[in-house]
């Protein structure tokens, strides 16, 4: 951390001046390349015989009927071979669509209103399928299967990014904080008297760090302020940062509030 800070604080030395010149050249080269690529693309677009067309006029068509046009142009359907004629039910559309939908100017909107996204991602329920369950007044997509409250700890460990595509990280704390402290069964914690739990491990140093590194988001769920982490890591004896820690990057953006939880002012 300190090494990064020192580098940032140095005045321009001959070596940094050289690297700036080099950087300028790289930027110039990058700019020229970008212009060339743009020109090439523009030329190529003009040559293109079949321009991408609006799908608005075909929005009500059965997906299986789209093939007649798509096959001619050699473009498989975005929604794959929907055998049942019910959009997105037969193939891996759920996992795949983020690559395309996560793009500005996507043509999803030509057939789908935003409510189509909202009903899965934000819990809307103006037109839910009969199979769609609800938690309280919010509707849930079908990957929240069976008793999702019971099995979500398993699912949440699979791929932490999957949860935060729809839920802000504060969502987890908002729910967990409503239960009495110590009442939730956590794999690595054991009861410690009334309304309390303690981390149980045969080898504290190894076990807790391995678990935290694999699923830090679950720690945050019940300890949003990180109070339990700071008890030890705040002493300075155990460095929690990753090897290539870019302290300056975080300070520039988020300020020093986080740093001050462990470091004294002027020491970092």
């Amino acid at each position, binding site marked *: 951390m300190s090494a990064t800070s020192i580098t940032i604080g140095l005045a321009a030395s001959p070596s940094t001046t050289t690297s700036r010149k080099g950087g300028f050249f790289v930027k110039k080269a990058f700019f020229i390349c970008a212009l060339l690529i743009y020109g090439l693309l523009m030329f190529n677009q003009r040559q293109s015989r079949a321009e991408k067309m609006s799908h608005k006029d075909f929005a009500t068509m059965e997906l299986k009927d789209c093939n007649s046009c798509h096959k001619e142009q050699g473009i498989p359907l975005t929604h794959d071979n929907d055998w049942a004629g019910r959009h997105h039910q037969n193939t891996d559309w759920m996992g795949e669509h983020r690559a395309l939908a996560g793009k500005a100017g996507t043509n999803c909107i030509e057939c789908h209103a935003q*409510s189509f996204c909202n009903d899965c991602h934000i819990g809307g329920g103006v037109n839910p399928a009969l199979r769609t369950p609800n938690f309280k007044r919010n509707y849930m997509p079908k990957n929240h299967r069976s008793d999702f409250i019971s099995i979500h700890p398993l699912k949440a460990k699979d791929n932490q990014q999957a949860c935060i595509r729809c839920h802000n990280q504060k969502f987890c704390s908002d729910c967990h904080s409503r239960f009495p402290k110590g009442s939730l069964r956590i794999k690595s914690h054991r009861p410690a008297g009334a309304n309390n739990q303690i981390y149980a491990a045969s080898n504290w140093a190894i076990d807790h760090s391995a678990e935290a590194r694999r699923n830090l988001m679950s720690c945050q769920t019940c300890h949003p302020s990180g109070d339990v982490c700071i008890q030890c890591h705040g002493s300075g004896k155990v460095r929690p940062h990753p090897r290539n820690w870019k302290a300056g990057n975080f300070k520039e953006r988020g300020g020093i509030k986080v740093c001050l939880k462990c470091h004294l002012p002027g020491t970092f």
Partner: protein
Amino acid sequence: MGYKMGLLRTVLFGTVLLTASSALAAELRGRASTQYLWFNNIFDGDKQAEFAQHLNFSLTNIDPDKKLSLHGYGRLSQDVMNGDGLDGRLFYLYADYRDLMDKLDVRLGRQFVNYAAGSSLIDGGMIDLKNIGPVAFSVMGGRNVFYGIDGELTNSKDWVFGTAAYLTGYPTTDAELSYYLKFDKYGIAREQIGAMFRHYLFGGLKLYGNTRFDMASETFDEILAGAKYFVNNNLVVTGEWFQSYPVFDYTSIYSVFAVDRYQEGVFRTDYTINKMFAVRGAYKYQDYGSNTEGHVFEAGLKVRPFETLMLDVAYDRRQGYAGDLDGFTLDIQYDYTPNLQLAGGVAYDVYQKDSMTGNTTAQTYWLGTRYRLNKTMSFDARLQDNVNVGNFDHDWSGRLAFNYDF
């Protein structure tokens, strides 16, 4: 405060709708759904029942050039049993003006924005600049809106901004490069660069991928690369590799901790045998780092013995880090008449969070029906029993809905 804001938005929502609907040439389409829901509240163990009103509309053809449209979607609910009060959620309410000078699309209001670098529900605006060549540009910004269990958790200083450049006009290629910046009350909470790519080759091969690069930690916090091969109209083979490096808001203490990279590889096949049968199977290898792994197997079968009946069975088995899960879902849907649909299903999971807990089951059973009274009105009913849930032996819940399409 949040409650008042929600109420205010709902009033605005209604006002705009009424005002807009009075425009003579305009075309108003949408759905109003009046619902009655009942369930057990897991937080206090009491039964709860609510009336909810959903409204989704699109108002088009407002101006002579048909460039302006209004879109809205919201929900208002009132608990009538447990004292949980009034709750509102405005999913979106925005004005969309397309093809301004044949080059600009402008969207103002609450809306869902989605770039490769990040997505958000915002109170703000989004402008797309197009028809200037093979690359189009987009810029967006506004108040970042996000929800907790019962309402908005947004603070007054939660903002997001973003910009994107994307390829346009190519039938076989999509690509985007974008930038996403998120603020909270302490400063910049997230700064990311994202990219996506999709390309069709040889008429039957699709390559796709997306990535996000976190500027503060200087790591790729997400990478997806996939290929889908359409062997023929009935057989699709998919291979994917995904990795993520969890990142946290820079203003959170959790952003300073070291984490492990997560990776997964997926192989999946979807095969439509004939008009009656379709099958699918998938294997997912999960690598949590430090020699910790998981294996997920999925198999599915869809049967449509005749046009009006469909059965969908899915089997899941996962083993390894995070616990074991072995279960299936079965959904049946039967169109008894063109206007009456009957449906039902089971989800049965045996899971083990760790060796101390042993096997536990999670089961849900549900029945539902949809009756279409005429072209504009329909009625839904759904009943569910959740067995072996932690707080209730039989957690009964259900809903009745009257839907009006206009």
